[in-house]
C-alpha cells in the first residue's frame, strides 16, 4: 500500500524540471554578453508528459532524430535544446533578455504553484492520519 498519492511523484518531477529550467535561464542571462553564445531552453512539456504518463518502456536515444517506441510519447526525457537559428547582436549572441526575464518570472510562479499543491496534498494526508481532527 502506498500512502502517498501518486500525484506527489508527478509534482516532484515537475519541481525538478522547473529547477533545471531556472538554471538554464540563469545561464542564458549570465552569458548575455558572451560572443557566439547561443541561448538554451528546456523541453519542459516533454518533461511534464513523461512525469504524467509514467510509461513503462522508454527507448534510449543517442540522437533526437531517432524514432520512438509506439507506446511512448514522442519525446522521452528532459532535454536542454540550443537555439542556433537566430542572432540578435553582432557578436553572434542570441540571448533575448525580455524573453529570458519573462520565462524566469513564469517559472518562479509555476514553481510556487506546484509547491503550494504539494503542501495541499500533504496537509490533506495529515488530516486523514489525524482522523479529521
Amino acid at each position, binding site marked *: 500500500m502506498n500512502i502517498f498519492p501518486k500525484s506527489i511523484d508527478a509534482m516532484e518531477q515537475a*519541481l*525538478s524540471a*522547473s*529547477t*533545471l529550467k*531556472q*538554471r*538554464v*535561464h*540563469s*545561464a542564458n*542571462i*549570465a*552569458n*548575455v*554578453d*558572451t*560572443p557566439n*553564445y547561443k541561448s*538554451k531552453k528546456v523541453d519542459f512539456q516533454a518533461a511534464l508528459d513523461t512525469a504524467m504518463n509514467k510509461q513503462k518502456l522508454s527507448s*534510449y*536515444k*543517442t*540522437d*533526437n532524430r531517432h524514432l520512438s517506441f509506439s507506446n511512448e510519447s514522442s519525446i522521452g*526525457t*528532459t*532535454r*536542454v*535544446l*540550443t537555439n542556433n537559428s537566430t542572432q540578435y547582436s553582432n557578436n553572434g549572441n542570441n540571448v533575448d*533578455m525580455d524573453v*529570458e*526575464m519573462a520565462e*524566469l*518570472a513564469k*517559472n*518562479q510562479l509555476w*514553481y*510556487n504553484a506546484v*509547491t503550494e499543491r*504539494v*503542501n495541499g496534498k*500533504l496537509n490533506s494526508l495529515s488530516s486523514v492520519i489525524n482522523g479529521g481532527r
Partner: protein
Amino acid sequence: MSLFSGFNISASGLTANRLRMDVVSANIANANTNRAELVDGEWMPYRRKTVELSQSGSSPFANQLQSAIHRGDTAVTGVKVSEIKEDQTPFTLRYDPEHPDAGEDGYVRSSNVDPLKEMVDLMSATRSYEANVTALNASKSMFMKALEIGK
C-alpha cells in the same frame, strides 16, 4: 543540489560584470595617462583594456563529459573572463611641442581611451549585472519556497 548550481551560475555573471566595470573604471581613470609603461627607455601612453567573456567550462573535454553524463543534454554553465585584452588602435596625437613627452615632430602621443565607448560599456555591464541579480533573487525565492514544503 542543482538549485545551488543556479546560484553559482548567476554569481559567475555578477563577478564577470563587476570585473568589466572595474576595467572600464581603470580606462576612464587613465584616459590622460601619458606615462603608463616604459618600453625600450621610452614612455608609452596607457592602452585601453577590454574584457573578453566566454562560456565557463567550454573546453571540448568538459563539454564531452557533461553530455556523456546527461545523456546528450547540452552543458549548462556560467560565464568566465577568458582574457583582458589591450586595444591595439593607434594612440591619439596632439600637437604640443612644449610638452616634456613630445616627440621630435612636436606631437604628444596620448592614450587611445574613448570616453564614449567606455560609458556604453559601463551601461551594458550595469544592466547585465542587474539582470543577474534578478535571476539570483528568483532562484533564492524558489529555494525558500521549497523549504516550506511539508510545513
